[in-house]
């Protein structure tokens, strides 16, 4: 894992000091709320329905046990005992007092964490694949790139007042676990003639105008990635729309001028910027890479897993993925208990997972864009012990990628922009489909809920997506089918008129019944939908 040196630490400490000063000015009245708002937003502090919300960055989703433990301590001390893991590898606290915010940032800084650029119209937390470094099929670990870009984007002097927020994801395998093409810029590492570089995609995003990012370059060598991204950002900063905040994302620029024109402008700017010495030397990426070298794996380990306990065997089949190292496995921890809040973890659960990471996972864990957690380096021999501890803590749900592994935004329970409540709906759906056999029978089925058109819950990318809308003051839910945030990225299509909360659960049951009746062997829900098209599903729902 990456460790700060004295430079990194001094920059994060300076930010804490600056924010303390800003909060002090606000508390004494020297700053009005209007003046303070843009300052706090640069630091992930939002004013929500009931309290302040603080968003903490988990760069590229990697954490140590100590960092995780600190997140739990903060939840216990400053929040109501919970943290909420988001779809962008961040953690949100929903019940924060303004006066405490500087102390929280100071505590985070002691474990090399921060909330820098977790909101505002700037380059946000760089996200990545939760299996980075441990999946067998990647060309290189994407996290050194993500760390290089974290540093490059932190307090970037030219790109702090962009037209709108800017999200970057970096992946390095053909299986896309990070919804890369639904980001403002997506990088996919590839190897060409033995040299590592990136394919670049630009102009993806969700929100009210969802778009899948087109490729704008098939290879940028690693030593030029910083100047290439400077060129991408400069064209966007100069020409992205600023007249309407709903049209301000880069996707609208790329769409309006056309991908060829955007590409041409970026290439011109890149030709100029390459000359300016903006790229760190390759030695800097090498320095960062050294932190992500393989940990000290043991060799000669047993591959055996004792499946005598059927509940454990079920969990292994669902939650455990293949690790590149013999004798090891990747453990997915579900944060989607059937009656809980998707992505929420209590302070005690966070503490437990921190200890598990220290004891069983070479002191490392990951968070995923699907709001779950991962222990990346677990010996197969330890799986049973881990499962027992998770089971005791209510964390042993076996539903990875199943219909109850729901992504849901905070919705009307917390969010000032919401039209509808996402969380109670997620719970209703989870209860309707609670039966383990039924879930397994339905197989991979990604269900995603957003409480309004901003699409924080990724509903456009759901095999089944649900969007909360306001119909004459009444909560109403639109259903869409056929989206995907994986390597086969696609956007869902709306089925037709919306539903009440119960109505949408019934409608989901109708489409899943149709799938079970019509599927051909090996087909997931998404595949059957793609083969049959919307018509039969529509008939099943409204017919």
């Amino acid at each position, binding site marked *: 894992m990456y460790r700060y040196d004295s430079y990194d630490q001094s920059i994060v400490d300076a930010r804490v000091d600056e924010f303390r000063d800003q909060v002090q000015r606000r508390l004494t009245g020297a700053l009005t709320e209007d003046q303070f708002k843009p300052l706090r937003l640069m630091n992930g502090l939002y004013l929500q329905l009931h309290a302040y919300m603080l968003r903490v960055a988990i760069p590229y989703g990697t954490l140590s046990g100590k960092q995780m433990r600190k997140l739990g301590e903060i939840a216990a001390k400053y929040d109501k005992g919970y943290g909420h893991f988001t779809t962008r590898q961040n953690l949100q606290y929903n019940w924060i007092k303004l006066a405490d915010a500087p102390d929280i940032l100071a505590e985070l800084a002691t474990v090399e964490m921060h909330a820098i650029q977790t909101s505002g119209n700037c380059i946000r937390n760089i996200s990545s694949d939760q299996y980075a470094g441990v999946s067998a099929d990647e060309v290189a670990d994407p996290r050194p790139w993500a760390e290089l870009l974290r540093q490059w984007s932190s307090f970037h002097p030219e790109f702090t007042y962009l037209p709108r927020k800017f999200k970057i994801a970096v992946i390095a395998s053909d299986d896309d676990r990070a919804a890369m093409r639904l980001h403002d810029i997506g990088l996919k590492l590839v190897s060409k003639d033995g040299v590592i570089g990136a394919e670049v995609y630009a102009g993806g995003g969700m929100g009210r105008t969802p778009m899948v990012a087109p490729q704008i370059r098939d290879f940028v060598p690693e030593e030029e990635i910083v100047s290439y991204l400077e060129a991408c950002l400069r064209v966007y900063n100069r020409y992205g729309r*600023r007249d309407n905040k709903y049209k301000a994302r880069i996707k609208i620029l790329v769409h309006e001028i056309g991908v060829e024109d955007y590409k041409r402008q970026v290439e011109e700017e890149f030709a100029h910027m390459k000359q300016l010495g903006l790229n760190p*030397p390759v030695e800097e990426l090498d320095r960062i890479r050294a932190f992500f070298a393989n940990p000290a794996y043991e060799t000669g380990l047993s591959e055996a897993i004792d499946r005598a306990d059927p509940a454990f065997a079920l969990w292994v089949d669902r939650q455990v993925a293949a690790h590149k190292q013999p004798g090891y496995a990747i453990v997915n921890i579900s944060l989607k208990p059937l009656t809980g809040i998707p992505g929420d973890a209590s302070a005690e659960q966070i503490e437990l997972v921190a200890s598990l990471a220290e004891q069983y996972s070479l002191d490392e864990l990951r968070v995923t864009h699907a709001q779950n957690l991962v222990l990346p380096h677990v010996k197969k021999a330890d799986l049973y012990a881990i499962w027992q501890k998770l089971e005791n803590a209510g964390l042993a749900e076996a539903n990875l990628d199943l219909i109850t592994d729901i992504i849901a935004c905070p919705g009307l329970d917390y969010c000032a922009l919401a039209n509808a409540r996402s969380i109670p709906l997620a719970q209703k759906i989870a209860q309707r489909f609670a039966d383990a056999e039924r879930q397994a029978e339905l197989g991979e089925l990604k269900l995603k809920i957003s409480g309004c058109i901003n699409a924080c819950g990724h509903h456009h990318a759901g095999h089944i997506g649900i969007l909360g809308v306001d119909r004459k003051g009444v909560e109403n839910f639109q259903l869409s089918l056929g989206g995907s945030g994986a390597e086969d990225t696609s956007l869902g299509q709306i089925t037709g008129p919306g539903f009440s909360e119960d109505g949408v659960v019934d409608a989901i049951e109708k489409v899943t019944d149709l799938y079970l009746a019509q599927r051909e062997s090996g087909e997931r829900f998404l595949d059957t939908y793609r083969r049959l098209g919307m018509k039969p599903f529509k008939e099943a729902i409204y017919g």
Partner: protein
Amino acid sequence: MVEFLSFRDGESAQEPAVTVESFTGQTNATAVRVEPGEDARELLPYLDRLSLVEVNFPAYGDGRGYSAARILRESGYQGELRAVGDVLVDQINAMRRCGFDSFHPNKALDDAAVDRALNRYADVYQKAIDGRQPVWAKRHPEKIDG
């Protein structure tokens, strides 16, 4: 409180700045004001005769002026580069990094606060226009000479 701030040696330019349109259409003006939607590259043929470029920030959240400033400096402009308009203490540091060397904000700034803002970050992550060595250069001094 300060109404005007300069980091240049010597006097600041006094000539009133004209619009980009009238500047590129006439031959004798030496000061120009760039608005957010305007292309700073239109000025590149005239850098030699310019002594002042004002970049207007009608609202601090509109960051186009940062790119305008860098483009001018990257192309070798040595004259005064002044940020005017809705310029707050919280933006001065980034503006300095992009090459601005004078400031004429709508509202006077508190000198002590400006000092604090400019000195708070001992280290920076990017190479920009202000000549500061980024952290990566400090980490690899042997790579950066010459």
